[in-house]
């Protein structure tokens, strides 16, 4: 009975989301649409990053690498062939990518393949590294992210190096980005609430005890890493197909830092936290952008302070870690049960509540 109600509520909210997107597509200007798309992409990236950092408790400093893998995969798959010859003028694109290009109506397949390639990267890096402890794992994943960056900058016949790739079809719209965000939340929420999620949280809380309970610790960590990599790749792909270009600088360590601040601010381990904070971050990024660019109000001239955004964000991260480590949502998760109980409590009159006690 309860299950049915919850499912209906979820479907209802999806329908509402659809309605909002349908309205936005007709009425929101390009600027706000871009911010909304960016927010959704951050949701996909942050919710999946949260799985490895928060749920299984293994700090990874390399999510930028997965996003890069996903971004380059979809670029190689979907750049029109004519563009491929133009863009790769220093060194021609390697075969087989030079010979074909996925048509736009196969976008979903492109996205999934991007996720799969990123997950493959996660498997290759995770297999040796996930048995490392705490900060060593963080450093190893950091190294992996940097290696991907260097490779992207240097393998001209694959990535076109620092020049990057232009002319990708702009396929990401609010349906795709928020659709993927909803799918990410759905799947990862199911994982966290399942036995597999329990195994992950057990590994986080006490790895020795988890192993003593029969949990295969490496397999559990690997599962989280693969899922995180898959959706990380998808977020990279979505982003690339939003701005229709890709270059290695998109995926520098700064991207990891952005995701780190989102999951820490949201509350490590909370999907709700990661979602809400991802949206907040996307908005804040835009708001702060005005501080960075020159403003001419006639009577006041603000020359603009480039780099100020990052100063604000890094101070925010430091202050969070010092004073408010649990983040905005701690480990709390939104659930239909919680909402319903809050609504129910309002309906029951005070004296009735006393009797019920």
């Amino acid at each position: 009975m309860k299950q049915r109600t919850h499912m209906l509520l979820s479907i209802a909210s999806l329908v509402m989301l659809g309605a909002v997107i349908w309205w936005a597509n007709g009425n929101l200007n390009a600027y706000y649409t871009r911010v909304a798309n960016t927010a959704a992409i951050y949701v996909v990236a942050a919710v999946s990053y949260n799985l490895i950092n928060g749920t299984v408790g293994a700090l990874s400093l390399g999510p930028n690498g997965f996003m890069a893998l996903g971004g380059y995969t979809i670029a190689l798959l979907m750049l029109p062939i004519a563009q491929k010859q133009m863009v790769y003028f220093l060194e021609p694109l390697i075969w087989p990518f030079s010979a074909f290009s996925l048509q736009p109506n196969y976008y979903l397949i492109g996205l999934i393949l991007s996720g799969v390639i990123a997950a493959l990267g996660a498997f290759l890096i995770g297999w040796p590294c996930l048995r490392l402890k705490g900060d060593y794992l963080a450093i190893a994943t950091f190294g992996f992210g940097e290696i991907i960056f260097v490779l992207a900058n240097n393998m001209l016949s694959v990535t076109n190096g620092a020049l990057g790739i232009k002319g990708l079809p702009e396929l990401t719209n609010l349906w795709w980005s928020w659709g993927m965000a909803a799918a990410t939340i759905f799947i990862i929420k199911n994982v966290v609430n399942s036995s597999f999620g329990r195994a992950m949280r057990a590994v986080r809380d006490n790895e020795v005890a988890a192993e003593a309970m029969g949990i295969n610790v490496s397999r559990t960590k690997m599962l989280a890493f693969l899922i995180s990599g898959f959706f990380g790749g998808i977020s990279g792909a979505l982003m690339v197909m939003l701005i229709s270009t890709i270059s290695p600088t998109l995926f520098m360590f700064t991207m990891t830092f952005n995701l780190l601040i989102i999951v820490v601010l949201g509350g490590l381990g909370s999907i709700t936290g990661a979602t809400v904070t991802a949206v907040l971050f996307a908005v804040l990024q835009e708001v702060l952008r005005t501080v960075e660019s020159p403003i001419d109000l006639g009577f006041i001239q603000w020359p603009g302070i480039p780099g100020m955004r990052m100063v604000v964000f890094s101070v925010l991260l430091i202050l969070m870690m010092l004073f408010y480590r649990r983040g905005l949502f701690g480990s709390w998760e939104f659930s239909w049960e919680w909402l319903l109980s809050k609504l129910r409590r309002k309906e029951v009159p005070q004296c009735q509540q006393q009797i019920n006690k």
Partner: protein
Amino acid sequence: MSIEIFIQQVLNGISLGSLYSLIAIGYTMVYGILALINFAHGDIFMIGAYIAFFAVAIYALPWWLAAILTVLLTACVGMLIERVAYRPLRDEPRISLLITAVGVAFFIENLAIVTLGARPKGFPVPAMMATNFDISGIRISGVSLWVPVLSICLLGCLLYVIYRTKVGMAMRAVAKDIEATRLMGVNVDKVIMYTFAIGSGLAAAGGMMWASKYPQIQPLMGMYPGWKAFTAAVVGGIGNITGAMIGGLIIGLVEILTVAFFPSISGFRDAIVFAILIIFLLVKPTGLMGEPLKEKV
């Protein structure tokens, strides 16, 4: 390649490696005491270079004064960071400290961009570094000669402090067992402060010498040297000072000689260093000279 060029490259590698050693020592000392990877340490190195720049280029101080001032001021910056960002979290899990360190690194880098400008500035190279020497037919730049020499002197002073002074003994004790040392009446907070001061001071020296070797400074100049120095610390054995020295030389030589022998992969030099880091973490995390640790069940 000719033997002269080979020797030049080896010397080049040694001077680069000495610089990595100086930075690596900061990482390794802090890790030995706090089990913290001070992600922001590379940026301390950058601060040293900038302070020297201002002292000499803007305030026209003589080099001997500028050098001392730089080391002292940078040491203060290091101590400040420890006091403000790391000390409050000392009892927290190491991951929290690492995340904070990442925040501090980004803060310093971007504060530098905001206040000092992202555009590179030319560094006023001191005269002794700029002159070249000719030793039995081999051209040696001042940098290639003086950097290793100065580094060895600094390292010698450091080893003296560590093994022959009370402060050094306190540092070694804290690195072994922080609680026991505290119970014996040692002011652990002060010892940790000194550790950061020494590490930062050495990084400042490294920064000045690096800017003499590559005379363009910019706010992000500490990123890659920092991470490579960290790799050096891991290779040598994190927590082990001699290890940091050896690791630095190894990484410097590997980097220079790889590019010298295989110029086509020079773009990948950074990736090679990171690959070495990952391989050591996987295969020999205690490095060439470190000691193993075990969790009590």
